[in-house]
């Protein structure tokens, strides 16, 4: 039996065409989500920010709502409150996680249990943590009761108002609690991925634990620290539920202010709410750019290290 193995021209053409349309087809559904749904939602908010919202019979087109959003008395206060809460929680959780990650590198008996506990916050919803912090730190909460029994306070009124206050203590606590799991895990696996010969070389050369940390471990973890911090900043800065529940009436974070405006019965506030949501997206866009630069840089150095190893 003779089989013709030669491929005809039309078959080649068909295969070429198939290869050409295959790629767009593979990407299309995901592009629909990212450009259609995500981009569409942002675009709608962007246009509505100019005051053009036909469905509620507003068809003007001016910059005044964006200007009003920026000059709103709550805007700057909300921006700073959000920045403070996010940055403080990141600094605290990163410091704690660094300690955890470095210490977990050495072996000891209870290491496994500790590792398990530190992972706990990873998959607990923020709303649940928020409620836990509420029952712990509210004026009649468990901590206040403990203080009473220790003779520190006489009544619920004496307890320092940790929640609903300008300090944002409750919100910060929620974020620190949840970030510890994520940050310590990422930093720990970064340390695990480190070449153990560097560690040994440093020790045989007589480096102390501190020198090892400052000169070797910290620089190695730095890109991861930056990237995780940016991620956590994006997540916390855009959060609504936790600051809404635990935050002060005013100033609260930008998402809370924007959403309150949106919910207002005064429809005139709606373009302003949309303008504010565009501002939130813009801040996230800045983070995206910085994140990307760091990631590229790290990939570049890793590739360089790899190629040098091969030599």
């Amino acid at each position, binding site marked *: 039996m003779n089989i013709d193995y030669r491929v005809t021209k039309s078959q080649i053409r068909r295969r070429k065409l198939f290869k050409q349309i295959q*790629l767009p087809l*593979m*990407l299309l*559904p*995901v592009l629909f*989500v*990212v450009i259609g*749904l*995500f981009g569409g*939602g*942002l*675009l*709608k*908010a962007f246009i509505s920010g100019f005051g053009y919202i036909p*469905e509620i019979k507003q068809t003007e087109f001016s910059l005044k709502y964006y200007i009003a959003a920026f000059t709103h008395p709550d805007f700057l206060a909300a921006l700073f409150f959000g920045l403070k809460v996010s940055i403080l929680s990141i600094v605290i959780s990163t410091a704690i996680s660094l*300690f*955890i990650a470095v*210490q977990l590198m050495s072996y000891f008996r*209870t290491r496994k*249990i500790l590792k*398990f*506990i*530190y992972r*706990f916050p990873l*998959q607990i*919803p*923020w*709303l649940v*943590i*928020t*409620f836990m*912090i*509420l*029952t*712990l730190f509210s004026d009649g909460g*468990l901590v206040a*009761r403990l203080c009473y029994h220790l003779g520190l306070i006489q009544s619920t009124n004496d307890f320092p108002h940790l929640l609903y206050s300008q300090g944002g203590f409750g919100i910060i606590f929620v974020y620190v*609690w949840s970030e*510890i*799991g994520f940050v310590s895990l*990422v930093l720990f*696996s970064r340390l695990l991925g480190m070449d153990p010969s560097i560690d040994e070389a440093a020790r045989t050369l007589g480096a102390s634990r501190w020198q090892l940390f400052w000169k070797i471990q910290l620089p190695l973890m730095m890109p991861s620290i930056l*990237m995780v911090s940016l*991620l956590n900043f*994006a*997540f916390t800065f*855009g*959060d*609504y539920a936790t600051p*809404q*529940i635990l935050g002060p009436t005013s100033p609260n974070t930008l*998402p809370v202010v*924007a*959403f309150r405006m949106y919910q207002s019965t005064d429809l005139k506030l709606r373009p302003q*709410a*949309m303008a504010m*949501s565009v501002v*939130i*997206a813009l801040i996230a866009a800045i983070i995206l750019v910085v*994140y990307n630069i760091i990631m590229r840089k790290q990939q570049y150095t890793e590739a360089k290290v790899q190629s040098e190893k091969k030599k």
Partner: protein
Amino acid sequence: MKNISLARASSKITIRLILWAIAIMIVVPFLPVLIWSFTQKWFWPDLLPEKWGVRSWTYVFSSHSQVGSAILTTLILGILVTFITLVISLPAAKAIGQREFKGKSFLEILLLAPYLVSPTAVAMGLYSVFIQMRLNATVLGVVLAMLISTTPMMVRMLTSVFESLDPNYEEQARSLGANSFQIITRVTIPIIIPGIVAGSLFTFLTTLNAFFYPYMIGSGKVMVLSVLLFNFLGKGGYDLPITSALSIILAIPGIIFLLFSEKLIKEEYFAMGFGH
């Protein structure tokens, strides 16, 4: 010499103590919620309830509470979102992980954007669009909105799985006489199954834990557990035992996941997809 070893031992003990203090700080917040869920009467300033009881749990599982239907809605939403996310992410991840094409790095940045831009920035605009399409307050609308959060994560996780594959495996299978369908079912899927399991579990949990999209797009009509908990919390003067029971239910899937994740999936998958 003796002094040095003594100092070293004491610093070791201090470190252990700090490590345990952090661990206790993580565990302690669970306690009041657990106690409250089994409380009948607990007045200031008692450290333990005056009267214990299971009123909150009987309420939660009674037919006239919304909790049962909320659990059902949440599960349906989770399964739908996970399935759709997986189906649309697989081909995209394969393309990004194994092919070179123009605009690939731009696409990767584009896919990072929904991950970093919070739902609060997108949901208001999206809600207005969905009103015009009559998708607001429907399960379909919430599913579509949730895809924004879940797809980028799934694509990232699966992309790194495809990247680690030998790109020639398809050719090898083909030369051994496998057809396209066999290649997918017998070769590709078995190799990537750990990544699929990890990604699906993550997506499922993300959907269960998600709040803002179901809250805004569902506008009270799609009642999932997280929205129900928020409503209980937002009321003011809330019923602490019932809210506690509700938050325990909401936390259970994540805890189960944590208990089994070490056996189910490798540690790398955890950090994967986070620019690690």
